[in-house]
Structures are given as structure tokens and as C-alpha cells.
């Protein structure tokens, strides 16, 4: 009999499941943020926003690209009001689908035109620079080439790590094509491939590999190192090396915010972006995430190269949003499978 009752209780749970289906759904008038940035990095900031303004929020944390794909599938029924991400390609895909709406010019004007979309569809919140991360045992920084273009020299054969699939490398290839031309970019990628670079799945794996001495250098964004230094201490065997001013390797990329065309809480969404561009929030990026603040008047972390000295290559970030040509080129030259 015990077994029958077990089965019966299992069957009785089915209506419960049906209740669950409907109970937690339904409309929600909270501001809904899709945050493609690590919860560990930005949650305190988002909670502070809610506390300061009294606007209640719900946040979906995930990978920038996954969240953008989710928005594309959800269509006009997406619950998202704000997309806050760090992937330039995702912005391109959302824009191409007509999913981003124009931001008020007062918000856009808070940052330099270089850090926002020319059609007003997204605004940069914080910045990161492409750098070389090197192993402190294996490499003397004085001997590092100051241009990314020189890392195809035979001396670097088998010593160079890249993260070809995400977070900056495809954007770099686009910048290379724009600045130096298609043919130059193709040849450079072929030379790079011939030099047998090691391709990592993500930045964390790559920086770990540099510190472990699996490769001597890797081409990454600048701020991952600081997380490792906090986590592992000063004897972590990797450091950043900044490219020479104006070098295409030192591309400057941004994490950005935008409001969806289907947003229901537009007003709150604008207040949220305004908050991200406030002095308080910008200071948070300096102090906590080691990124560059983008609003003038807020100083960057003194451990970083000052923004005024960076002089990144002159590239319109919105030109980077369509990465397909670069991906094709990377495939043809063997950098991607």
C-alpha cells in the first residue's frame, strides 16, 4: 500500500506543478535589467541604484552573448528593459534586428563621442584596453614588442596565447582590417597562425596559462589581471604590458548600456543609465572593477595607464559591431576552426 500512496502522491504533485507554472509568472512592473556582466562585479552597484532611487529592479545575470540571443528569441515579448553588456558583436546583432531604441541626448552627451553609438543606440559605461599579459619569469618587459603586429616574428613561435572566440579578439581583427586593409589583415593572421599560437576558451584560462608558464604572453583585456592579483596575491606571475600609443593592438573597448525597443519601464531605464554614468557609479568602476571610467572628471585607477595617455587607435566603435567579415577571415586563415 505504501507504494501505491507514493505513486498517488506523485500524481497529486502534477496539479502543484501546474500551479507553479502560473503562480510565479505574470506581469511585473519592476525595471528589468539583463546584465551580461559578472554578478560579482556589478551587483553591489545595481543594488545601490535601487536603494538610492527607490526603483525596484530585477536583474538577470548571464553571458552577454547568451542574453542578447535570448532577447532576439523573445522578440517583442522580452521582459528586458535594459541590456547592459560587454560584447560589441551582441550590440550589432540587437541593432540589426531593430531591437535598440534611441537614448536621450542628455545621457549620450555624458561621454566622449568615441564611446557611444553615433545613432544614439548605446552608450559606453566603462572601458577596457587590449594589452599583452606576460609571464614575469619568462619575459623581460623591456624586450616586449610595443606593437601587436610584431608578435608574428619567429621569436614568438609557440609562445603566444589568444582568445579568438570572444571578448575583443574578433573586434581587434575588425580594427586591423579597417586601419590596415583586408589584405594586410589576412597576411598578418596567416603569419600569426604559422607561429602556432595557443587558442584559449576564455580570458581566465588564458591568463592562468600565462602565469603557469604554458605560454609566455597572451593578448587580452587589461582588467582580468587585477582580479587575479586580488585573488592570488602579488606573487602571481603575470603582469600587463601596454602597447605603444596609437598601436592597433591597444584597441579600447567599452561595456555599454542600451534600452530595448520593447521596454515597458522606459523612464526608469533612463534613470538607471543616468545612474551608471553618475560620478558615484563611475568611481565604483575605478575602485572595484579596475576598468576605465568614461565620464570626464573621474580619475582612473592609478595602477592603470591614464586615459589621457592611452591614445587608442582611431576606430569608431560602432564600426566594430558587425564581426562576420572578421570571423570569416579568421576561419580562412586557420585562427578559428
Amino acid at each position, binding site marked *: 500500500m505504501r507504494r501505491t500512496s507514493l505513486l498517488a502522491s506523485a500524481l497529486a504533485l502534477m496539479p502543484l506543478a501546474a500551479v*507553479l507554472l502560473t503562480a510565479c509568472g505574470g506581469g511585473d512592473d519592476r525595471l528589468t535589467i539583463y546584465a551580461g556582466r559578472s554578478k*560579482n562585479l556589478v551587483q553591489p552597484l545595481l543594488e545601490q541604484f535601487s536603494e538610492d532611487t527607490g526603483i525596484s529592479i530585477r536583474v538577470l545575470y548571464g553571458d552577454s552573448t*547568451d542574453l542578447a540571443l*535570448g532577447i*532576439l528569441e523573445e*522578440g517583442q*515579448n522580452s521582459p528586458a528593459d535594459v541590456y547592459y553588456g560587454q560584447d560589441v558583436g551582441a550590440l550589432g546583432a540587437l541593432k540589426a534586428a531593430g531591437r535598440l531604441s534611441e537614448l536621450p541626448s542628455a545621457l549620450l552627451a555624458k561621454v566622449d563621442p568615441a564611446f557611444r553609438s553615433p545613432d544614439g543606440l548605446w552608450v559606453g559605461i566603462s572601458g577596457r584596453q587590449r594589452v599583452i599579459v606576460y609571464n614575469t619569469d619568462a619575459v623581460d618587459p623591456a624586450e616586449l614588442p610595443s606593437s601587436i603586429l610584431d608578435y608574428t616574428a619567429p621569436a614568438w613561435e609557440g609562445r603566444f596565447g589568444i582568445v579568438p572566440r570572444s571578448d575583443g579578439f574578433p573586434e581587434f581583427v575588425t580594427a586591423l582590417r579597417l586601419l590596415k586593409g583586408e589584405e594586410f589583415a589576412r597576411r598578418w593572421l596567416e603569419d600569426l597562425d604559422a607561429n602556432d599560437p595557443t587558442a584559449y576558451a576564455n580570458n*581566465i584560462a588564458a591568463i592562468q596559462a600565462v602565469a603557469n608558464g604554458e605560454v609566455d604572453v597572451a593578448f587580452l583585456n587589461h582588467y582580468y589581471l587585477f582580479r587575479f592579483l586580488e585573488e592570488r*596575491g602579488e606573487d602571481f606571475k603575470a603582469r600587463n604590458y601596454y602597447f605603444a600609443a596609437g598601436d592597433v593592438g591597444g584597441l579600447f573597448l567599452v561595456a555599454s548600456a542600451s534600452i530595448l525597443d520593447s521596454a515597458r519601464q522606459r523612464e526608469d531605464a533612463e534613470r538607471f543609465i543616468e545612474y551608471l554614468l553618475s560620478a558615484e557609479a563611475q568611481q565604483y568602476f575605478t575602485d572595484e572593477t579596475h576598468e576605465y571610467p568614461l565620464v570626464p572628471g573621474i580619475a582612473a585607477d592609478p595602477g592603470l595607464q591614464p586615459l589621457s595617455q592611452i591614445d587608442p587607435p582611431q576606430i569608431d566603435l560602432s564600426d566594430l559591431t558587425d564581426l562576420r567579415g572578421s570571423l570569416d577571415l579568421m576561419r580562412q586563415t586557420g585562427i578559428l576552426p
Partner: protein
Amino acid sequence: MALALAQARDRLNRAPLILLALAALVTAAVLMPPVYLVWRATESSAIWEHLSDESTLRALGRTLLLTASVTATCIALAVPLAWLTGRTDLPLRRFWTVLLALPLAVPSFVGGFVMVSALGPGGLVQDLLAPLGVDRLPSIFGFWGAWITLSVVSYPYIFLQVRASLSRSDPSLEEAARGLGNGSWRTFWRVNLPQMRPPIAAGALLVALYSISEFGAVSMLRYDTLTPLVYLQYTTSFDRAAAAVLGLPLIALAVLILGLEGMTRGRAHYYGGAQPRPARTMELGSWRWPGFAFCALVALLGVGLPVAVILYWLVSGLSAEGTTSFLAAAAVNSTLAAALAALAAAIACLPVAYLSARHAGRLASFFEKASYAGQSIPAITIALALVFFAATYATPLQRTLGLLVFAYTVRFLPEALGAIRGALLQLNPNTEEAARSLGAGPLKTFARITAPQALPGVFAGMLLVFLTAIKELPITILLSPIGFDTLATEIWSATSEAFFTRAALPSLTLLLISAFAVLIMLRRERLT
């Protein structure tokens, strides 16, 4: 009496309409992701170009090689482990059973990371061996690393099912074989192994389908099978049509694998008399310690290494503040969603499993095979398919716990299906026929005769679903209610930005909850 039995048999052989309808409903739900995939693929203007591209074909070759190697290795690991822990006098049997089931609950992105941290250049093992003069280990990147990692995380699919089948198999055949003068080995090969064939095949099927759709570990270990190519299309080109096109060969592979599994099944049923008794425990004698060492070695790779790396995170980390906040909520959420998924999957697969085991026919076979669809498709595609269906046709369900459980069920139904079908096949239908001929209705027969005897299989299936759902990532991110943190999302969020210390506690909690789930199943197994 003979006439009554014959009539009862006849009644049984015709599948009741309601059963067919329920099975059709379940199959329709499970087929949503593949239907979506094919539909998206037709949006591509270059289907053939993508499919015939050299890189696609190379990735297909790698997928085949990896899948075949991992499946064979998992069988070779799981069958002796299940036998040792289930039927012999091996010391600490229950301890090993719990430990050996756990690798299934290690999220694959953690598993890949662990392999690299432990066996990679400059990793833990190399540090340990450095005093002995070893300064370079063979590279784990590429095929070898992917093969070892996938084998170690997925052999429990077979282990748990064989383990469950051993606990309910009828020892009389074995006793008869011995009575006829056969030795232990001969009995094992001639009687025990054939009896284990259905659970081995069901488990191997899951391993093979898992291998073709796995992403986290193969990408960490840099072995480009087809699934990473699908992800690449999604996450860098945002070309959902091209991604779907590259997913088509995965469906074709799944059909091929299902066909192969069907061929190994044959027509035999492996059941004994009506009243199963506990089987005799085999004395290992001088094999005792080699067997012990074998269990220890596999457990060391599958559980020891991840725990060592997690503890290393915990001990070596400096930024430990904020580690425990919200951990309790995430643990409750994870357990709740995975437990509901296990229950839902067990209930949903019952009609399909029952139909397939008791009313075998073309339709039953189609329903059963189609139900495996979810296992062969990359998780991100399943997630996007259900996001799309919910947003387009069922907006009230968007971002509900119900939808998340539904998605888990679609993804993990095959795990419950194989185990439950296997359990039903081991059950002698004469008992059911007897109950029917004595006047019991079909429902009563099912509730009083079939269900109780199939329970170990049902629990094994539910355990598989629980262990795999609790670690699931892409589906959880894209379908869970907003703000519904789980242990898997916490771990991912921390490791993706090198907050290793913060990843440690949720990782350990995940393993502890999983161990507890295995223990509960073992208790159940003893009771039944």
C-alpha cells in the same frame, strides 16, 4: 485458466488509447527543440555550404571519434564498478557507490577547468611531481584531455543504471548456471552480463548523446567537435540560422546512435521468476584489493580532483568576503528545481517507457526514440527554442519556475526513460497478466504490481535527472525566473571573472547535495 490467461495477454498487447495519447503528448513536447532547430536551419541561405565546409566535416570526424572512444571507455569503467559495488564483498561498498555517482554532478565547465588546473602545464599534479624531476607532463589539450574528461564525468550514466538493475535482477538464473557446474567467470559472462545488457545499452546511449552535445569541457580542453562550432556561430556571428544548420548533423548522429542501440537490443527479455530475492554476494578473495584500488582510482579522478581544486580555491584565495551571502537561497533553488525536474521527468516518461516495454511496435518505438532528441542537441539550442516558444505562444509562462522545470524535463527525459524502460523490461509480465486475470483493472495492476517492482529503476532515473539538472547552466540562465539564483549560476558567475574563492563554497554545496541525493536513492533501493 489457460483461456483466461490468453485473453488477459491479448488485452495487454493492445495498447490502450489513453496511453498512446499521453505518449504522443510527451513526444510532442520533447520534439520542440529539434523542430525549432530544423525550422531555424531553413532560414539559412547557405545550408549546403555550411554542411560541406571542410571545418564542419573535420569537426564531425572529431565528434565521431570522441563519442565512440568515450562510450567504450565508460562501459569499460562502469560495468566493473557497478558489479564491485553492487554484488561483491568489496570493503566500503556504499561509500564507493555515493562517491562514484558524483562526477555526474560536476558542471562540465568546472570539470574542464579542473582537468586543466590539475593535469595541465604548471598544474597541481605537475607541482606534486616536480620534486621527482618531472618538469613536463604530456599535453592534455586536444583529443586526450577531452576523452579523459568526458569519460570521467559521464560514466555514472551507465554505472547508476547497471547498479539499479543488479539490485532487482533475479538470482535464480545465476544459481541455475552455477548448479550446472559453471564457474564465477563463466556465469558472469553467460548470465549476468546478458542480464545487464539493457541498462548498459541505455546508459551508453546517454553517454554517446551527451558526448556529441557537450560544450563546456571540450572547449576548455580545446577539442573542436561540432557543438563548439554551433556555439561559435551563436556567440560571435549571432547567426542563429547558421548555428542551427551546424546542429543538423548532431540530429543525424543521434538517429544513427539510436539505430545502433536498437540493433544491440535484440528481442530478448531478461526477467526471471515473479519474486525477486536478494542475490548472493560474490566473494572477491584475492581480487579484493585490486578492486578496491580500481574504485579508488576512478573516484580520485572523478571526485578527488574536483574537490582538491575547489579546496585549493578556498585555501589560496585572498578575497573571501561575500562568499556566503545568498548561498542558502541558491542551494534551495537548485535543489527545488532539480527535484521537480526529476519528478516531472519520471512521470512524463512513464507512458513512453511503458508503451515501449509492454506494447512494442512501430509507434511505441517511434515515441521512445524521438524522446531522446533532447539529449543530442546543444543545451543552448534547447534553451533558445523554449525561450522562443514561450515568448511566442505562452507568454504567461515566460520566466516561471514551471517553464524551467519543463525545459529540464525536455532536456533530461531520456535519462529517466532509459532507466524506467530497463526496469520494466526486467519485470516478468506474467505477474501483471496474473493480476489482470484475477480481475484487477489496468490502473490497479500498474499501481500494485508494476510500479512497486519498477521503483529501483524509477529512482535511478530520477537520480540521473536530479544530478544533471542541478548542474545545468545555459537552460538555467535563459529560462529561470529572473533573480532565481542557483548554485550552478553562482559558480559560473564567479569562475567567469576569476572569483575562485567565491566559487568554492557553492561548488562544494552542489557536491554535498548531490551526495545526499545518491544516499537517499540507496536507502530506497534497500527498502524495495
